[in-house]
């Protein structure tokens, strides 16, 4: 359940931003999480409910962008959707490819008041 420490890190970032902007409250927090980032989304939801009560994020609306995995083939340049890390290129079978999205793990935006 590394999702617990991920959520704790998010709380820490939220606290930090609230202090920085002299705000009182987090109205909304928008996360960007890639499907290949190693986060299990169910475990994440569970960790979220376990962690955020009694924190600055308790009453915040949580938005989440799930980012699809995408890759560019290192040999033929083909762009393809990646469902798992290091799937070979569907056209030429190349295994050395560039993952261009899907590994994001980010706090994108917050609305503070």
């Amino acid at each position, binding site marked *: 359940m590394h999702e617990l420490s991920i959520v704790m890190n998010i709380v820490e970032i939220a606290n930090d931003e609230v202090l920085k*902007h002299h705000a009182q409250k987090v109205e909304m927090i928008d996360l960007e999480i890639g499907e290949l980032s190693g986060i299990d989304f169910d475990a994440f939801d569970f960790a979220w409910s376990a962690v955020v009560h009694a924190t600055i994020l308790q009453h915040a609306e949580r938005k989440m962008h799930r980012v699809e995995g995408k890759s560019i083939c290192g040999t033929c340049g083909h762009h393809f959707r990646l469902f798992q890390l*290091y799937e070979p290129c569907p056209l030429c079978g190349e295994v050395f490819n560039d993952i261009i999205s899907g590994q994001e793990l980010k706090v994108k935006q917050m609305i503070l008041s």
Partner: protein
Amino acid sequence: MCATCGCGTGTVHFERPDVSQLHLANQRQPVHEHFPKQKTIVEVERDILEKNNRLAERLKGFFEARNMFVLNLVSAPGSGKTTLLEKTLQALNGTVACAVIEGDQQTTNDADRIKKTNTPVVQINTGKGCHLDAEMIYNSLKILEPVNNSILFIENVGNLVCPAMFDLGENKRVIVISVTEGDDKPAKYPDMFQSADLCIINKTDLLPYVNFDMESCKVYARKVNPAIKFIELSATTGTGLTDWLTWLRSPANYHTTIQDNNTYLANRSSGNTVNMVTDNMHAIL
């Protein structure tokens, strides 16, 4: 920029039109609402793991400056990490300075086993935590005080999922699996295999008794990580241990900058002309 709150640089306000109009009417000045219900949108754009990653970078610098070689050993519970460490430390027998950080949820059992080999060791108990992070390593190092030119073995908490995301500043990540775990392990835990440099396949003494296809295990692992290397061994019988010891001592594993510097120092003391990495550096030296 708004004189009252300084907004307008990167932050945006929401307004309540009903109140703002009052506000406008009263003040003759096109200002926005400061009370009540002022909201600020902040474009945060921060990596959730930034704290760990930043600390891991600092640890890398520390390790590099001390010319240390640092390994992060990960595995499922019971694959034989501690046994391998015991055997390794006995075999090295003080020829290389070593230190160990042990990560377990509870008990100091593993550290006690390491201590018997006369190696400095720190036990981290993570409690409910299922992985080590850079901050734990940072705090352990203050107690451990590892010496220059040493090898630091970090035994992570037995878990093939959670430790994958947490950089400890290590030079190499070593994944240990045992033949009793099934040859499709790499397919089941791709994140960990993707981030590992070396895969040790342990408990080969048990191969006659289990259904484990060595080749298909490697095929699975290479699918996830084409660059991964393998060493097959039995920590208890010692078969294959020399391959591991050779890998441990292989100069390719050490910091290249340090090697460059050593070559430089050797050349300088012998009076040879020094050809350093860049002309710039050459000039300074």
